[in-house]
């Protein structure tokens, strides 16, 4: 591992930015924790705006990692992933915002999540292929576990950004929360 930003927490968990050589490990972890529904659950946050079921298929995951369109932050113990966060960029826009696409935890550990986002804030300004300004999480209001995940993200440092009425049609509102990179307004 060449990254110099590895964080070792008190529990000997290693937190790091994944590389292309982690593809198989990430695929295996996603398969174990099957992302087959686009709904939140106790241990899974998924970007409500991802509508393409192919996004988390093996080819697309590899393609996004290889092209640096999606960055994965891993928390590992004894070489096994405990928690995974994926942050994607919109490759078809000028946006400099990372979209929080996925969080999968074996067990929700808020301190660990905080450390993982901290690593993202520290490392990505140098490692990213964009000049990131913030990380944005999106929620469809009124669905299960929204309040739980809003609460978790608030604890790790996210703040409310906006609520967009009827953004998703049929009266469904979209709420976004953000975490800012340092020195970005």
């Amino acid at each position, binding site marked *: 591992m*060449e*990254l110099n930003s590895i964080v070792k927490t008190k529990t000997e968990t290693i937190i790091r930015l994944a*590389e*292309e*050589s*982690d*593809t*198989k490990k990430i*695929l295996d972890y996603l398969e174990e924790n099957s992302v087959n529904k686009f709904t939140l659950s106790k241990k899974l946050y998924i970007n409500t705006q991802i509508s393409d079921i192919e996004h988390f298929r*093996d*080819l697309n995951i*590899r*393609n996004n990692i*290889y*092209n*640096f369109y999606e960055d994965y932050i891993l928390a590992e113990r004894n070489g096994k992933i405990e928690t995974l966060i994926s942050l994607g960029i919109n490759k078809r826009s000028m946006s400099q915002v990372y979209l929080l696409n996925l969080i999968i935890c074996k067990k929700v550990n808020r301190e660990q999540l905080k450390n993982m986002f901290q690593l993202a804030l520290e490392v990505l300004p*140098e*490692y*990213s*292929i*964009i000049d990131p300004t913030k990380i944005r999480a999106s929620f469809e209001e009124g669905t299960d576990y929204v309040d739980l995940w809003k609460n978790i993200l608030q604890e790790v440092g996210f703040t409310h950004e906006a609520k967009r009425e009827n953004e998703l049609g049929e009266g469904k509102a979209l709420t976004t929360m953000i975490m800012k990179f340092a020195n970005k307004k």
Partner: protein
Amino acid sequence: MENSAENHYKIIRGPYQLTVDITNKCNLRCLHCYNFSGENICVDEEMTDEELTRLIKDVADMNPLNLCFCGGEPLLRKDILLKLIKILADKNIQISFVTNGLLLTEEVAKELKGAGLSRAQVSVDGIGESHDRLRGRKGCFEKAVQALKNLNDVHIQTGVAFTPTSWNTDEIDQIVDLCLEFNVSELRIQATMPIGRGEENTKSILPTELQYRKMIKRLNARRNEQILKDGKLRIEWGDPVDHFIRLANYVDECCAFVSIKADGSIAPSIYLPLTLGNVKKHSLKEYWEHGLGRMWRVETLKEVSNKVRCIKEMNMDEIEMPKTFKEKDIQIDIVEQNIL
């Protein structure tokens, strides 16, 4: 009941795209060379002029869209190369070739143009000494640039292949500028593979994660700039692993891309240590008629392919497979074993 893909296969006469290693002999020993050109396992078993001619006549009858002569350095077999280009050009098949440019003089460029070459890809792996360091010889950069000029002068479409190394990733802007200067139509860059001599020199040549990322950031900026300007220079960030993941898992009805190694063996992917026959034994047409287009149905091929999920694994160390171009491939013959 047969599905439509199977029906379509019956009316496709052959692969639409091929690569043929006309030789693995080489006048350089580049530090990153993925197939140990000049000293690999195929180099003493190369197809003769007659065998190559028979293959290319076969290919011409199949009427593919494009054939690329690879190497080694193809110009080390210039006479037969020109003859083969002519056979394909007479059938209006697009012909490209890859070269290090050392032998591509003004005169040779004219000969290639006269034979009917459509496109040439010249390797340029840095500016000046940076390029020469990877090539292992001084003066190679000037010759590569001269080759681009000579090709441009005779209006052969050109591409540039760039291999990122630990010392050249911050030269990407100059490489793009060089491409623009010589009307290059495609700049192709892909991650450096730890195979062949690239494996032996991994420590010294592989860029770091950060170097890759910074290079891609610049590359994306330059690509967007080119698209907005006139789009004449296409910039590609290629992935050497993607094709066999895709083919092994999603395309088993008809794959119309085939590689022929210098020894005549037929490779589904030039990066995998598995071959499906040899055109010295049976004609390419015969292999096609025996289901070559359905090659990705072969279970052993799927197994081999599915073991490699990232570039690091291409060196076959962790997955206990033969080392491509260094050790004997897993050999299957789809005609003799009649397995498709």
